[in-house]
């Protein structure tokens, strides 16, 4: 992160940093909320903020995104409210209900499956001449799945405006990338489909943003898929249920922390005269309050009626589901009348 400043407006440069700070703050808070039992399993993204935000910065507001469970920094930057990851981890049905204004798919957890959805969305956009691209985001682990291959092959054969972004954070739970694949780069796999592949330092938000901008433009104009590998590092655990000290050593963790994209970017901005201690403190405070706000919102959402589990299975409930819904509703309501609460097991 030296040399000629990239061709982006100064307020963008600062805005990215603001989002990085905000999301780092969010991530730490979410971890604590899980430890307090206020939300369930949570997958922290600390260390990947630059890769995520840089990558989303190139999209148009109506583009499609099909991402993984670890992409919340990018999604928040793209416009998904901060309460969304909290609802999702809390196990609230609205966790998957993305805002109507955004073409962002709900998180799905089956590794690699969303790549094919991205292909279908890119195809739908092309057929309807909407000019949208479909960006799919996934991890290094996902590249081993058959769906990865099927998706890239289909997108290449059909010439679809699909962008495949691999967040190579070096680990798939406990498996290091060199045991996941025997190639030096994920980007190299583009050769198997005769499409372009780029390997980028994902911890450099400027490099990421710049490459992604040219990629998104090219994909939109030429209607061809591209594979991008963002090299980054998962600073924390896989999820709140994971203990990375079982499989990676302190030295590696320390090296990862030393390459923290926030530290790098703060240094760059400071050197460019775009950031000072006061501004940073202000941002930190704003971040804190944005996160507080999301947590409050989570608490406001309150309890959900169990019988709503039937409401989004089909557009119209078949008779049998109607009956089952009724039974469940009666049972829960009877319980409530008894003061017994929500039917614990």
């Amino acid at each position: 992160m030296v040399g000629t400043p990239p061709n982006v407006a100064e307020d963008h440069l600062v805005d990215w940093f603001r989002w990085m700070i905000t999301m780092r703050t969010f991530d730490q808070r979410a971890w604590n909320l899980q430890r307090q039992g206020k939300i369930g399993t949570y997958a922290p993204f600390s260390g990947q903020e630059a890769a995520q935000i840089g990558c989303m910065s190139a999209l148009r507001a109506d583009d499609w995104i099909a991402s993984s469970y670890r992409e919340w920094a990018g999604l928040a930057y793209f416009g998904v409210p901060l309460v969304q990851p909290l609802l999702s981890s809390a196990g609230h049905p609205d966790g998957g209900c993305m805002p109507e204004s955004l073409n962002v798919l709900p998180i799905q957890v089956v590794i690699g499956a969303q790549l094919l959805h991205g292909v279908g969305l890119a195809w739908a956009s092309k057929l309807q001449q909407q000019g949208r691209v479909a960006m799919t985001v996934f991890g290094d682990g996902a590249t081993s799945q058959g769906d990865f291959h099927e998706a890239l092959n289909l997108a290449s054969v059909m010439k679809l405006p699909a962008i495949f972004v691999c967040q190579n954070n070096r680990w798939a739970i406990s498996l290091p990338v060199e045991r996941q694949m025997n190639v030096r780069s994920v980007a190299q796999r583009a050769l198997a489909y005769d499409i372009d592949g780029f390997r980028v330092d994902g911890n450099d938000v400027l490099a990421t943003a710049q490459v992604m901008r040219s990629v998104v433009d090219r994909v939109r104009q030429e209607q061809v898929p591209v594979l991008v590998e963002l090299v980054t590092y998962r600073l924390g655990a896989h999820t709140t249920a994971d203990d990375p000290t079982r499989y990676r050593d302190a030295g590696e963790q320390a090296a990862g922390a030393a390459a923290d994209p926030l530290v790098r970017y703060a240094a760059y901005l400071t050197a460019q005269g775009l950031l000072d201690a006061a501004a940073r403190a202000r941002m930190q405070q704003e971040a804190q309050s944005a996160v507080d706000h999301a947590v409050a919102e989570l608490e406001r959402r309150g309890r959900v009626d169990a019988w709503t589990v039937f409401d989004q299975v089909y557009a119209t409930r078949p008779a049998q589901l109607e009956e089952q819904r009724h039974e469940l509703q009666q049972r829960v309501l009877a319980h409530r009348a008894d003061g017994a609460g929500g039917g614990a097991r």
Partner: protein
Amino acid sequence: MSQMTMVQAINHALRLELGRNERVLVLGEDVGRNGGVFRATDGLMAAFGPDRVVDMPLAESAIVGAAVGLAMGGMCPVAEIQFLGFIYEAMDQMASQAARVRFRSNGRFSAPLVVRAPFGGGVRTPEVHSDSLEALFVHTPGLYVVMPSTPYDAKGLLLTAIRTPDPVLFLEPMALYRSFRQEVPEGDYEIPLGAARVVRAGTQLTLVGWGPVVPVMEEAAERSAVSCDIIDLRWLSPIDWPCVLASVEKTGRAVVVHEAVRTGGLGAEVAATIQERAFLSLEAPVMRVTGYDTPYPVPLLEDDWLPNLERIRHAIKRTMEF
């Protein structure tokens, strides 16, 4: 009206809907230039062009997965899995993806797609091609499952399926593709979602089945002295329980017939529900005539393995004599 085979009726439905709704597209292996290995999509590419009728690379997960994306993106894809046995390759996209789009997004997105797949025995296919796997999908909430047994139903059910705002698995019994012709309207018609078909009215015993066994049940009933109500379920998910239960309440006896292997087949659900909801009407246990608990056999053995006339008659007899 004209006389059509089932495969022609399916072709008509696709043609009609491709013409009516430009969001509809047909995709699958060999569905375009070749018109499908059974010619179900014959002529469609010539009529609607390669953007609407798409020959796909050989990858079932990609076919269904891309269809899920297309559907979320505003299209109405009708995907073909060349033989149902190959749907295992797309099982995640069927059961954890297509079936959950609406649920996962709490209503923000939906996946109005159809997956068509031929299946069923008696046509001497190599392994895996003939397997009846409907039970797996009926056990998967979020999917509709439907199976015609006549040309008329095939066209009407397929039109209904394509217009249904949720994913539908449309199962086509290969043995019935060309086994007989029937008057089928040239125009548009639907068959209501979830409605079974009473094939024949009787008083002493209810025969319940679906797909390829329906004509076999009919023949068994015709040749039997026992007066049989015959119900072709058609919709396997959801099942038309009022129709089934009303019949059993009338007859007091039921035999369920399917080609799928016995243990864990959908016949178990039918028998379990009948005994649960019509217990006091039952004069005899609900019997099942099904495939045996083996992988689908090689062609030289399949005739003896399938539910046939004799086995159905035997079950009717045992039920009546119980």
